[in-house]
């Protein structure tokens, strides 16, 4: 299970795309697509290369402010675990 010490990246089958018609970001994979929230887009954008979960949290804290740290840490883990269950995020050896 992914935790703050994990190193993760986007699985090769997943592609992030901006849907210009509906003005939404989507994570596309075979036969399916997820509509991403603005914060989920922030996270997925950082998954283009292998990163520690802690580093992703730091990047988002820098963007949204120290006051949001606890909420960001919780949301990032929840999102990454959800995406990992769908095979869209892979854990790589640190």
């Amino acid at each position: 299970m992914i935790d703050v010490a994990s190193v993760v990246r986007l699985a090769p089958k997943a592609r992030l795309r901006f849907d210009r018609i509906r003005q939404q970001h989507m994570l596309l994979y075979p036969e399916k697509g997820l509509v991403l929230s603005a914060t989920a887009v922030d996270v997925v954008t950082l998954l283009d290369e292998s990163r520690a979960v802690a580093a992703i949290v730091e990047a988002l804290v820098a963007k949204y402010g120290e006051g949001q740290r606890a909420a960001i840490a919780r949301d990032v883990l929840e999102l990454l675990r959800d995406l990992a269950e769908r095979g869209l995020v892979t854990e790589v050896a640190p």
Partner: protein
Amino acid sequence: MTAERPYTLVAELTYRCPLQCVYCSNPVDLERHRHELDTAAWVRIVEEAEALGVVQLNLTGGEPLLREDLESIVEAAQRRELYTNLITSAVPLTRERLAALQQAGLAAVQISLQDSTPAGSQAVAGVDRFDAKLAAAEWVMSLGLPLTINVVLHRDNLDRVGEFIALAERLGAQRVELANTQYLGWALANRAKLLPSRGQIERARAIADEARVRLRGKMEVLFVLPDYYADRPRACMDGWGRRFIVVAPDGLVLPCHAAHTLPGFDFPRAIDGSLDRAWNHAAFERFRGDAWMPEPCRSCDKRHVDFGGCRCQAFHLTGDATATDPACALSPRHDIVECARGEAEREPPQSYRYRALRVVR
């Protein structure tokens, strides 16, 4: 004008195919649909689909690899940032061609297997190309493309669901689709031989359920129940004219790949106007929403879940395309499905009717 916009373009590039599967979803009157659109038409269709809202492109057929211009179509889709899935028998594939398609922007490959052995494959497809398919699956993996293995399930292979899952795992697939036959077209002609018994369905479903949990995060396991055993109809195409737009080899624009078997429809053609116009054509409006529904659908609390089921199934089983899908236990004609299920508990006929009108003992 509808507020709905399609997410997926299903491009049936050709009905030609090296296989002759007894459950093929292509039209039974194949000979009437020999004409194929040219490259320029497909490039335009891909571009118009993207402008309409499409983000996924399924290249299918028949066998899409028989189109020598497949690379050009994939490139057009890549220019529009579509997620392009190649849905193939893999029989005509070479490693060089696959690498070229990947270079052109192909995102994922789905390979059909008919069974877990050469003999089982031949019984369904009329030819044995099992080893060629396994080789192709290995090229997909070695090139780093995501692989889906698709197996259409029926009476004669359903008991090997565990073997199909193990094979997909061994090949390194990211997804395995274990899809029971939908009984339309060639499959309806062969239903008495293809429809499994309830016991077979329940055993296979239990195996798939166990594998889904065990493989979560590694390989997605999809098991599609035959709607003859589901008691409620499936949400065919996620609803008529909601998420999918299908273009047939000759340019007919359809809400599903079998819709041209319905009588009294004048479906638009991709060559006569824009895809946007086709999407808003009266034929696409015909079964949108719930105003067209008869009772018991119209007042059913599931009408926005299953969208009234499959219009083609309703027509081919009852003769009325507006009827409640007989797969639904609430349909006044559910007896048709119950009767077919009853027959499936007895000994099936010995022979198949093969696609392309070839009849084998």
